[in-house]
């Protein structure tokens, strides 16, 4: 008999979890909720005597702060009870841990006790609270019915019913089967097979597969293997679909593009990736001797010093986060951790980065059916990143948020991880993977369930109402943390020769790719450990169940590896061998269920051809403001979604674990203002370190994606330089998030989107080669559209550029806040009339009631101007001349000066007329233009001459002074002050927007 345990807090103790829910229910859902009391429930599927049940219950609860009962705990006063558990088959991390405690109490191994399932109770009270209110609270705040079950009880119903012990067991008694699929069918039928199977294969691709199975040599090999000779099995077709998915194959970046910029003149581009990204890095590589591995492995690797390499990877996890913000995001962060873990022979993980693009969390309009309110997405996504990061013990180093209504359809969730790799591990170069025929395929980590099946193909689809719940995985940082510790031990003992992660596509991808190193593989799916029975072989092969790595283990080390895994509580299983047969052979027990020739698997996908047509958009500027003070405008920008303080949510994630952080994400007298970039030590006992920074600006894409990409590269670079980075030691990562550029009936402007992509790539090439900043890794997410109720919402084209660089001495870094009254303030770099798509123009356009009239000249850097500025900045910082350094980004100089003053808790007097600027520049442009390649720096008066010398030859001017009086005063020459604001007021406005959220 199963039993139920309920655990509540003792009377008199606060219940912050309940208070938080009550607050959100009132403020966000506007429900008449007075009080919420929470309790934890465990359902134990084990037959135990009553006294043992009571003993188990006591061991599940804190003896001091909790009350506990087997069966039911007397309820607190309430009107509605909402009980939330997991659906069958969904990962229940807490339940799994409870099972290990149960085993400890009974003094047996965890697999000898029944499973335990967790649930949470919310006892809700409030005058006038009706059942539909409780339902809304459950649906819109507490539970995600894709993965969770919700039970709602009125008080009398609950009290009358006996305690429920209904277990969410998977009761599928389906016997595993393998189907084969006839492809000698008409084209419409091919398309139907692709669509109904969520294969996301195009007609050309389906035909290529059909033709492959017509080949006589293929048929002969299949006959020999006992496979249907003329048609694929579902295992094979699914494996091909996932290997050829946009997510894995980057078909759009590999496509032949017919690009038309001048009408009638078509330019042919063979692969954007090869032409612009790879070629740029190859050219830069001639000037940089520290590139170790680029575009090859799971993350790019650079040499840091003579002992360490660094690896960095940034991923997106957009579609899963739209369906289940918490699960999608935690999977995003622990998933990207596995990239450096699977790079070379496996990195040690040093830092995470996060960044989100959302619609406004204050959105008051209608939400299309099937989408979630952006507030809920934001809260859930960040909680997922926080739980994943905190529990893994990896500090966050950078974080950002950008807001635009077009992210309502698809939020963007960026997660990145920096890893550290010794040059040599167990006597071998650590950046090289090697596999010999006969090496054993070992899968280590979590078990396989139906989680995330079709994740790779699904993320290559636009979000539709019927998108599968299976596409959601829930990461478990704890399982992965155990796995990580085990792998580092195994690595240092030289127990494996190659490693990669199981992410998109699961085993099909990890084994399918690794086995190219030996020339084949023979994989037995029947040996894979499953979460529950009833999975078909193709599901085992494709499952994206989390926390798994695949290793190539020399046979002579297998026992030692498996023994170490056992002692570290990590499940590791030998699933087959790497071969040199030229094929990826998949069996299920005795029977071969798939055989794919590696050449066809990896090179058989036909190339796409896409048309691109560029027409510069005609976007008018907003009607200008009348001359006069700009206090209102500056306050509005400080309180705007993009610029306002994000300190509250940021500080819910540990930024200091591992003890390496030096220049932290928040700086200033009160450690409240975001730093331009962050710096960490490379290792304990060393003063060498690395810098991380990023640039992102989806808004400039509305005018020109060339300028957008050029600007974000420049932003990332100049942020790194601002704190003490050097241009010759910076590497970049590109993450493209694009609306679908492939034409279809519902996508009429695909050619324009493709042209935007071409221009973005050109900018990437031009700026990275001019700056000498090589791209070492990247990722693209190309289907960021949502179709709901016949309406397509496409995101603005977005590129995140992240940079990683070396810092000679972490004790010499410079922070952005004003330090001392009396310090002189200078502006470096030229301010131009670049207000197009700026924060100011977007604010003004909205205020004018013409929100799309954001036009004007879009900011765009010029390398010839930027490079001498960066060289001068590096010199000034090296010579220790600067007390502060800050690069203006959103909101231009005005916001930069305001934040530097807020950070220092001091004031400033600045003459805008002195700012280096192009002729006849308006005051508004001086204040708010987002011209790139600029800095606001301060220095003590006695170093003024040295500072001037350091910046000789570049646009530079002293513009004012840091003052004791905490007030920002900006004037224009002899004219009136156009900004005069107390720092306290600016700070309050800047912090109020996201107050405790």
């Amino acid at each position, binding site marked *: 008999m199963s039993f139920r345990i309920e655990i509540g807090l003792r009377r008199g*103790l*606060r219940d*912050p*979890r309940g208070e*938080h829910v009550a607050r959100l229910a009132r403020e966000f859902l506007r429900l008449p909720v007075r009080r919420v009391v929470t309790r934890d429930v465990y359902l134990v599927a084990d037959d135990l005597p009553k006294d043992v049940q009571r003993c188990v219950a006591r061991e*599940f609860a*804190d003896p*001091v*702060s909790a009350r506990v009962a087997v069966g039911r705990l007397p309820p607190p006063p309430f009107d509605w009870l909402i009980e939330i558990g997991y659906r069958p088959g969904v990962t229940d*991390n*807490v339940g*799994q*841990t*409870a099972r*290990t*405690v149960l085993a*400890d*109490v009974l*003094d047996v191994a965890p697999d000898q006790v029944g499973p335990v399932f967790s649930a949470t109770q919310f006892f809700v009270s409030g005058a006038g609270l009706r059942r539909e209110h409780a339902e809304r609270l459950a649906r819109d705040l507490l539970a995600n019915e894709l993965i969770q079950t919700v039970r709602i009880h009125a008080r009398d119903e609950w009290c009358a019913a006996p305690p429920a012990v209904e277990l969410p067991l998977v009761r599928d008694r389906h016997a595993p089967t393998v189907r084969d699929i006839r492809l000698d069918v008409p084209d419409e039928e091919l398309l139907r097979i692709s669509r109904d199977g969520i294969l996301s294969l195009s007609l050309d691709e389906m035909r290529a597969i059909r033709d492959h199975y017509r080949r006589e040599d293929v048929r002969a090999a299949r006959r020999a293997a006992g496979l249907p000779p003329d048609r694929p099995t579902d295992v094979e077709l699914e494996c091909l679909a996932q290997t050829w998915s946009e997510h894995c194959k980057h078909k759009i970046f590999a496509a032949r593009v017919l690009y038309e910029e001048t009408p009638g003149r078509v330019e042919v581009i063979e692969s954007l990736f090869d032409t612009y990204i790879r070629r740029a890095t190859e050219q830069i590589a001639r000037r940089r001797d520290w590139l170790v591995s680029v575009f090859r492995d799971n993350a790019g690797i650079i040499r840091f010093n003579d002992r360490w390499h660094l690896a960095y990877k940034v991923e997106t996890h957009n579609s899963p986060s739209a369906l289940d913000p918490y699960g999608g995001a935690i999977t995003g962060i622990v998933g990207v951790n596995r990239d450096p873990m699977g790079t070379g022979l496996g990195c*040690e993980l040093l830092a995470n980065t996060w960044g989100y693009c959302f619609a406004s969390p204050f959105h008051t309009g209608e939400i299309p059916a099937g989408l979630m309110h952006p507030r809920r997405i934001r809260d859930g996504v960040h909680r997922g990143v926080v739980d994943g990061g*905190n*529990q893994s*013990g990896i500090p966050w180093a950078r974080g950002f948020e950008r807001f635009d209504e077009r992210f309502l359809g698809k939020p963007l969730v960026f997660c990145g991880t920096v890893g550290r790799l*010794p040059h040599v591990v167990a006597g071998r170069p650590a950046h090289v993977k090697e596999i010999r025929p006969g090496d054993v395929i070992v899968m280590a980590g979590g078990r396989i369930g139906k989680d995330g099946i079709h994740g790779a193909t699904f993320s290559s689809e636009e979000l539709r109402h019927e998108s599968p719940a299976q596409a959601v995985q829930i990461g*478990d*940082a*704890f399982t992965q*943390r*155990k796995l990580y*510790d085990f792998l*580092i*031990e195994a690595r*240092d003992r030289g127990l494996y020769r190659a490693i990669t992660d199981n992410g998109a596509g699961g085993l099909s991808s990890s084994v399918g790719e690794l086995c190219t190193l030996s020339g084949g593989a023979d994989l037995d799916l029947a040996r894979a450990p499953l979460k529950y029975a009833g999975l078909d072989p193709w599901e085992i092969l494709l499952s994206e169940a989390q926390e798994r790595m695949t290793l190539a283990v020399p046979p002579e080390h297998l026992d030692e590896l498996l023994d170490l895994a056992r*002692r*570290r509580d990590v499940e590791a299983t030998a699933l087959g061998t790497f071969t040199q047969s030229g094929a990826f052979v998949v069996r299920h027990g005795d029977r071969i269920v798939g055989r794919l020739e590696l050449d066809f698997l990896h090179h058989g996908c036909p190339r796409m051809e896409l048309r691109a047509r560029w027409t510069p958009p005609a976007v008018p500027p907003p009607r200008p403001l009348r001359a006069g003070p700009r206090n209102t405008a500056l306050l509005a920008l400080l309180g705007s979604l993009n610029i306002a303080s994000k300190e509250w949510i940021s500080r*819910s*994630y*540990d*930024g*200091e*674990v*591992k*003890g*390496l952080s*030096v220049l*932290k994400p*928040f*700086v200033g*007298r009160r*450690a409240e203002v975001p730093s331009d970039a962050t710096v960490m030590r490379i*290792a*304990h*006992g*060393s003063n060498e370190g690395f810098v991380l920074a990023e640039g992102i600006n989806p808004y400039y894409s509305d005018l020109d994606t060339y300028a957008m990409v050029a600007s974000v590269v420049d932003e990332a670079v100049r942020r790194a330089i601002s704190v003490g980075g050097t241009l010759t030691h910076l590497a970049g990562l590109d993450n493209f998030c694009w609306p679908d550029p492939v034409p279809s009936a519902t996508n009429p402007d695909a050619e324009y989107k493709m042209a935007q992509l071409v221009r973005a790539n050109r900018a990437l090439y031009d700026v990275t080669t001019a700056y000498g900043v090589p791209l070492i890794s990247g990722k693209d997410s190309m289907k960021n559209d949502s179709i709901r109720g016949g309406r397509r919402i496409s995101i603005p084209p977005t590129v995140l550029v992240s940079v990683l660089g070396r810092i000679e001495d972490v*004790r010499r*870094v410079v*922070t952005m806040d004003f*330090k001392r009254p009396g310090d002189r303030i200078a502006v470096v770099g030229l301010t131009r009339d670049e207000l197009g798509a700026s924060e100011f123009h977007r604010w003004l356009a909205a205020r004018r009631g013409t929100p799309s009239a954001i036009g004007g000249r879009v900011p765009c850097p010029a390398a010839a101007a930027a490079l001498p500025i960066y060289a001068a900045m590096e010199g000034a910082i090296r010579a220790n001349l600067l*007390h502060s350094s800050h690069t203006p980004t959103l909101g231009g100089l005005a916001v930069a000066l305001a934040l530097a003053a807020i950070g220092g808790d001091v004031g400033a007097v600045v003459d805008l007329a002195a700012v280096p600027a192009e002729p006849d520049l308006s005051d508004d442009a001086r204040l708010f233009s987002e011209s790139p390649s600029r800095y606001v720096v301060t220095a003590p008066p006695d170093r003024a001459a040295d500072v001037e010398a350091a910046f000789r030859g570049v646009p530079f001017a002293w513009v004012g002074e840091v003052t004791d009086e905490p007030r920002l005063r900006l004037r224009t020459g002899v004219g009136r002050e156009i900004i005069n604001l107390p720092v306290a007021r600016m700070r309050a406005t800047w912090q109020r927007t996201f107050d*405790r959220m």
Partner: protein
Amino acid sequence: MFPTDHAPFPTTSRPRVLVITGYGFNCEAESIAAWRMAGAEPIPVHFADLLADPDVLGTVRALMFIGGFSFGDHMGSGHVIASRLRHRLRPALNGYLAAGGLVLGICNGFQILVRLGLLPGLDGQYFRPLVSLATNDVGTFRNLWVRVRFEHDSPCVFTRGLPPMDLPVRHGEGKLVVPNRRILDRIEHQRLAVCRYVDSLTGEPARHYPANPNGSVNAIAGLCDPTGRVFGMMPHPEAYLYPDQHPGADRQRLDGGLPPEGLGLAIFRNAVRHLRTTAPDVAAPA
């Protein structure tokens, strides 16, 4: 077994310190560095290996439970490790404590010592939980630097003579709750509330966020047992080993106030000093 990411330190007369790792403990790198810099010989041991061979406790003179999220903080922070220790390691721990060994718990480690009942250990009775660490009043995990003060009339060997200092807190369950008033009185009376969150201007115990980051009763940030040899705290001294780790290091440098080393190191130095000046009650390793 963990990446050796440290500069070499001299290795003469170094007391051996067991640093427990694995299962979601996260602060091994900085904790190992802290003990090394303080002159000890830290020995990282996976929790599973400790359970398999508890005799290793007889070869060390200090034992540290480090910060992290053991078992993902599922079922309450520190709950599962404490339960395992109680079920599987109680005799070995009793022997170790009776022999005069030091125990330090930081953050998750402190949560474990409290749930295990090693702290406050009133009347020398261990394994009897009397207090708890509950969810922060603000309801979420918080990472920020706070000012703490150490009570100097306490028996604690780790905190002797320490000045007030800034340290980071990084936790979601750090609010000390003492349901029984008499127990709180005894904790205070015996000077076991050795570390408090204070207002950085007045130096007095702080009641509200952010100076008191979790709402702890009497602003208590750390506890010791009556012997002074078992000590735990929520803030992280091992995260302040280098002066530049302080978020105000840029200003301290300009003002000439940058200390020569991170102030958190003093707690580890105190422990090593204590071990060097007391006879080893535990057998040295062969």
